[in-house]
């Protein structure tokens, strides 16, 4: 298992190298550049040259790339041109927010998708099954930002049930402290349940917006997988033993049906992080995604490069963890 993990982490090296090259040229291919974005209306050729010299953008591209690479391996991605603070520091400040949002979306997708897919399979070819299949087809096709605006308009603007933007009501909880950066957790550990509840409410709409595509995918995979498994010979063996229905469901159907669901859920992590860029922007949710979106508008090269590379590492590591979890469920994988 350890050798497996190490081998998988080694695969990160070529992935990150290739990604860094792609990113490096892609951000420089964007029209405008950081100097224009910073200076806006006041941009004169002299000022642009001055800014470029300040950030080393006047040097040849290979020199820029090599020095970027040299600092990157030391986890130093330079400073944000927009906020002037180190990229790594900005990421660590914002990451808890994105994790919190992704967890909310993940709980929504997994918590609803698995029971829904299971029920659809057990009521195969009934109304519930058809509704879930059609619903999940709609779910995967609705763009995240569109769904986000729709939810915000309906539940925040029109009905006023839930907050429209942000992570916490800043006026009401002005002096709330955030030792971990996970606002719900912070509210609990600092003995401020009202703040925790308010932060949780801020997670509901963006969580649903971000979790809808994973929900649709997980529902479909669970349904298909359960439909496969209930016709397996070993389920018939379990029936022939006269086991109780719930034992058969739990031990013989679900445990096998979950294997493909685990794989697919792992793949959703990348989707959650990319979806977070749009969701956080729609809901003005102060996380990694929104910051990255602002960085792209501002041609903030260091932030774009740094954030995307760190996110790539996270996606690979999470997928590795998912594969390890898979081995815990399936003894055939463990043996290898």
């Amino acid at each position: 298992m350890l050798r497996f993990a190490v081998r998988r982490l080694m695969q990160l090296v070529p992935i990150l190298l290739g990604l860094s090259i792609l990113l490096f040229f892609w951000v420089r291919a964007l029209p405008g550049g950081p100097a224009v974005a910073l200076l806006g209306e006041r941009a004169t050729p002299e000022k642009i040259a001055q800014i470029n010299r300040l950030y080393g953008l006047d040097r040849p591209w290979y020199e820029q790339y090599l020095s970027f690479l040299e600092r990157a391996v030391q986890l130093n991605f330079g400073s944000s041109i927009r906020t002037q603070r180190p990229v790594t520091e900005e990421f660590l400040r914002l990451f808890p927010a994105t994790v919190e949002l992704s967890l909310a979306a993940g709980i929504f997708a997994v918590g609803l998708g698995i029971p829904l897919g299971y029920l659809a399979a057990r009521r195969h070819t009934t109304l519930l099954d058809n509704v879930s299949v059609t619903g999940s087809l709609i779910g995967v096709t609705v763009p995240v930002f569109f769904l986000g605006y729709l939810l915000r308009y309906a539940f925040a603007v029109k009905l006023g049930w839930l907050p429209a933007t942000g992570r916490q009501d800043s006026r009401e909880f002005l002096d709330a402290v955030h030792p971990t950066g996970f606002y719900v957790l912070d509210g609990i550990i600092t003995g401020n349940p009202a703040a925790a509840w308010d932060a949780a409410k801020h997670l509901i709409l963006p969580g649903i917006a971000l979790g809808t595509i994973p929900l649709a995918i997980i529902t479909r995979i669970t349904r298909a997988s359960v439909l496969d498994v209930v016709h397996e010979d070993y389920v018939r063996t379990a029936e022939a033993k006269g086991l109780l229905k719930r034992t058969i469901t739990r031990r013989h159907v679900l445990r096998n049906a979950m294997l493909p669901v685990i794989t697919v859920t792992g793949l959703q992590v990348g989707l959650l992080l990319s979806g977070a860029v749009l969701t956080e922007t729609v809901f003005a949710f102060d996380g990694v995604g929104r910051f990255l979106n602002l960085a792209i508008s501002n041609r903030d090269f260091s932030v774009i490069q740094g954030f995307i590379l760190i996110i790539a590492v996270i996606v690979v590591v999470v997928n590795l963890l998912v594969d390890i979890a898979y081995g815990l469920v399936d003894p055939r994988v463990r043996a290898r």
Partner: protein
Amino acid sequence: MGTGTSEELDLGQAPGRPGRTAYDGPLLAVDDLSVTFTRRGRRDVRAVDGVSFAIRPGETVGLVGESGSGKSVTALAVMGLLPGRGVRVGGSVRLEGEELLGASDDRLRDLRGREMAMVFQDPMTSLNPVVSIGVQVTEVLRRHRDMTREQASVEAASLLRRVGIPDPVRRLKDYPHQLSGGMRQRALIASALACRPRLLICDEPTTALDVTIQAQILDLLRQLVRESGTALLMITHDLGVVAGLCDTVHVMYSGRVVESAPRRPLFGSPRHPYTGGLLASIPRLDAPRGAPLHPIQGSPNDTIPWETGCAFAPRCDHRVDACTTSAPALEVRGHASVRCWNPLPPPGRTAAAQEEDA
């Protein structure tokens, strides 16, 4: 084997089982069983059509036929394992006098695994790949015999030892992929026999195994049913299996029983041309080298509906005019019951005398 001893053995070894009232009928009585598969927009398929047979306690009965003859469906109907939708079941299946068709799901779950158990064809797919052998053997003990986890483990190890699995305590922790096909079938037999059922149904238990393992598994089954007094319903297409194991044989064709006979007369003097054809098609070791095999012509698809005649008629070399105009009934002829207008001739006087002696 004596019925009396098997009763004592049963009651002695499975305490806590609800007391039985005295009952001296057959253990299993299948009467006019019919199974029809219905699907919207398709023609109904009658897989089993008026099948009747009985099994006495401790008896071993063979159900023989080609693929599609309805033998597995018969077994699934007895166990109550046919799917709920799209299947119509008629007739009667009684286990110790209790009607099983139409019995509640709860009641059937209580009986399955405890009073009647089943071993399936393919041991590679009949065990759950992600659950340990130990759990798959103990779960039936814990369900029906109210054992604690520890008691069930001890019992499971002794069951695995009885079915010839070496180092059973270690094997309990193994997963199916770590066992060979023969070992897996042994584990499945162990879990089927765990609660000492009165009836064990084996659906082609050796078909998926290689020949040397087949013989071992059959020996094991023979020994286990003799020791425990369990009645065995053996479903097979292999007359070799029947010859070594069964007291009584029912030959099925296209959903109906075409010949029922005790083992010796069936092999000595088959009366139905289909049975005769099956016996003639067995390759013989003492046949001259290069001698041609004698298969039955055609395939099971070449049938006519029983309503219009004998389903076997298109493939039969003893066909007479009556065969394609009306269906023959099952009639007693000597030792056998035969469904045929023109059965094979009875054996000569000397052969008959030998059978009387046997």
